[in-house]
């Protein structure tokens, strides 16, 4: 019998707030944190809106200034939420009270699983001054390299920076992974962390997802691909016209039930299961029938040993593109038939933070279960009649149990589903 996996800490940041509570409050007020992009002047752009974190000050996120030169914007977000989740969990205080060999053993048994979205394009622009000097001559490029480009360039570019620096800053030394699978990276980090705990490879694991895709070349590509809206996110709405990029990060500290009990941890919820499938039809293709997503949900419920009727709420991917929302609705109908639980989505509030989205939605799903409330999709005006009788609402709904199903989709036809439960009481 594999170990039960509980949640003992969380952290989150996005355009709508810098803690899970702040983000929850913003979602409940119904005002989207979608604003004109500030990182460059995008006023004349076909898409000029995004879910940017306003006034982002690196020092407010990660106090060690030496580290700032070694990290990209997305990495700062990931390190910040990791620290918040550890703080909230009381893990550090527990470890400090142990004698050194016991603390070392705890570190060896604590894993780090991170999902991230790729390092974007801007980092490569640091070669532009050198390209200008070289003027097409590679000989000059090679000779002037050392004098022109920051010697630490590669280290800042590494996709696995958050794994590395969580390790160095917090001393965690257990099993680890850095998932680089577009928008499902964060939810796969949760799934793999939980699998490591179930298999006895670790007693605790920090799962993190982070992304900061709002940069000029990314926005333009997404626009070219027809994925972006000109004015806002309206998931499942008849007039939805596309998604908008967001940025952010979220973290969950997972522990086996016995490891949490060992340190008398406050338990917020439980990981029950996960499912992952792909549709294998190319990087950008999505099947209209929602086949891959329906398969992922079925696998996750099987893993959680639950029937569809036991699911209390669904946090949909709800990216607000015509195709993704329609196929997602098809998948939900296929699994739940005429009796789907309340469905909501959160991206309307802070944009689509790609690799962070699945884990950020998971953190919010657990807040929702704790409050016994499924927040409405505030931007919904008229449910798309082509989506059938999907139980999504502009107004809050009541979950029908303490179990949430969190759906997440990414490029390559990737689909994941996570099943989470809120703790019956906050103290165990």
């Amino acid at each position, binding site marked *: 019998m594999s170990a039960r996996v509980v949640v003992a800490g969380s952290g989150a940041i996005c355009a709508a707030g810098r803690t899970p509570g702040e983000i929850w409050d913003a979602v409940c007020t119904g005002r989207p944190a979608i604003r004109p992009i500030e990182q460059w002047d995008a006023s004349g752009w076909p898409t000029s809106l995004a879910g940017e974190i306003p006034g982002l000050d690196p020092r407010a996120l990660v106090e060690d200034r030496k580290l700032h030169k070694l990290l990209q914007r997305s990495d700062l977000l990931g390190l910040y939420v990791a620290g918040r989740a550890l703080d909230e969990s009381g893990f550090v205080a527990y470890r400090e009270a142990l004698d050194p060999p016991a603390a070392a053993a705890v570190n060896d048994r604590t894993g780090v699983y991170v999902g991230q979205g*790729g*390092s974007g394009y801007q980092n490569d622009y640091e070669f532009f001054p050198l*390209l200008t000097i070289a003027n097409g001559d*590679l000989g000059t490029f090679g000779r002037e390299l050392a004098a022109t480009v920051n010697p630490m360039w590669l280290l800042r570019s590494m*996709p696995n920076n958050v794994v590395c620096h969580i*390790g*160095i800053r917090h001393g965690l030394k257990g099993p680890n992974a850095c998932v680089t699978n577009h928008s499902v990276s964060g939810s796969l980090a949760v799934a793999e962390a939980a699998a490591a705990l179930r298999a006895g490879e670790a007693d605790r694991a920090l799962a993190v997802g982070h992304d900061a895709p709002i940069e000029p070349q990314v926005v333009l590509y997404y626009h*070219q*691909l027809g994925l972006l809206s000109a004015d806002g996110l309206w998931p499942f709405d008849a007039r939805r016209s596309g998604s908008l990029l967001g940025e952010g990060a979220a973290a969950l500290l997972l522990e086996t039930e016995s490891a949490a009990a060992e340190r008398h941890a406050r338990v917020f919820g439980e990981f029950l299961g996960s499912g992952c499938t792909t549709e294998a039809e190319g990087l*950008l293709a999505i099947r209209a029938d929602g086949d891959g997503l329906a398969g992922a949900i079925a696998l996750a419920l099987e893993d959680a040993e639950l029937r569809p009727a036991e699911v209390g709420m669904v946090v949909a991917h709800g990216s607000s593109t015509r195709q993704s929302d329609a196929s997602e609705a098809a998948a939900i109908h296929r699994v739940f038939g005429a009796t789907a639980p309340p469905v909501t989505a959160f991206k309307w509030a802070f944009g689509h933070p790609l690799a962070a989205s699945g884990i950020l939605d998971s953190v919010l799903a657990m807040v929702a279960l704790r409050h016994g409330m499924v927040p409405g999709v505030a931007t919904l005006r008229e449910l798309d009649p082509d989506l059938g009788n999907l139980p999504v609402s502009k107004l809050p709904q009541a979950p029908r149990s303490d179990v949430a199903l969190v759906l997440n989709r990414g490029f390559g036809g990737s689909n994941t589903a996570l099943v989470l439960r809120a703790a019956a009481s906050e103290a165990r």
Partner: protein
Amino acid sequence: MTGKPRRVAITGLGLVTPLGNDVAATWDALLAGHSGVAPITHFDASGFPVRIAAEVKEFDPRHAIEDRKLLKYANRSHVLALAAAEEALRDAGIRPEVSDATRWACVVGTGKTGLGFGELGEVHRHCAPDGHFRPDRLLTDAFAMDPLAFCRSQTSAGLALLLQRFGIRGYATAVHTACASGSQAVGTAMKLIRRGTADYVLAGGFDSMIDPIGLASFCLLGALSTDNETPERASRPFDATRNGFVLGEGAGLLVLEPWDAARRRGARIYAELAGDGNSLSSYRITDSHPSGDGPIQAMRQALTTAGVRPEEVDYLNAHGTSTLMNDRSECAAVRAVFGSHAGQIGVSSTKSLMGHLIAGAGAVEAAVCALAIHHGVQPVNANLAAPDPECDLDFVRGQPRVRRIRAALSNSFGFGGSNSCLALRNPDEVEG
């Protein structure tokens, strides 16, 4: 899952490496001691402090992949991966069918992707001719409007191509922990089968950083050997005179399946993929602790999860990058884990011949271990004239060592501190 975890068999191998464009050519070159390191031909490297690399040679993507449309979505490392995957599936004699596609998974370690050098040059010419980037120029840049360039630059692009090409519809993921990527991917794949998430996994790693930016990035860190005049001797892990690693490129893919299923269908089993160790050094970005802390935990876990006793290990494919800090830390770790048995293990770093394939390295080296077990031969650690006195292991020098291997380990340690160790076991040891 209840009961005993499923035993995992390696039944298919595919390689495209600097030593050869398939498994047979790579293995032959390893045994013959031919070096894959030579002056760089991919671009004019004459101005760089390092002008040598281990390139994949005479590789024609159209020969390997007849689907021309697919190739438009692929960068060089993706094409190498597609070719290696094709060989691995052919070698295994099994491939995803519509009926079992959802029971196939794919886990790959992928390189740090982004724009190609030529593509970056296009953006520079249009948007930053004076070196200063002007975002608005992108709006009139035909290249920045090209969805194909976007697709090729995605970190999950190689994965998506493999899934599409071979029709894999189960669990799929791409991972990146620098030089440990390929090995972590193979380890994760093993666990997917053990926990019942998948029945078959196409797993491996691929990378190609031999372009001006990739070479520059390692030159800036001073991590590469500058022995431009003697390329075939430049990579000399554990030698007292080593002075850095040699950048390579390539792909290694493996087909994994449950042992019993492999036996039932009469498949050739190269080895059991028996154990996986995975740890974080949490010491420095680019180094492990000199004591071997970090790698020690990974090797111990690999042995434990494999149920292999230290004295059963006959061969270690070392990470062996040919950098001072790595080589010494790794040797300290081997001594700490194996104690007096450390001297009985044949050790070689095949990076001495094929260079460092970065995200592809761990997967290619896992395949080398499977071949070493299958053939009963330990490939050499080339260029080891005078071992560093701090590295006092039993290195395979001069000639490959013909000797039955009961169990083998493959080490991979990445920038960022991720350590991965895979344990492989001889099929005869499994079935007595």
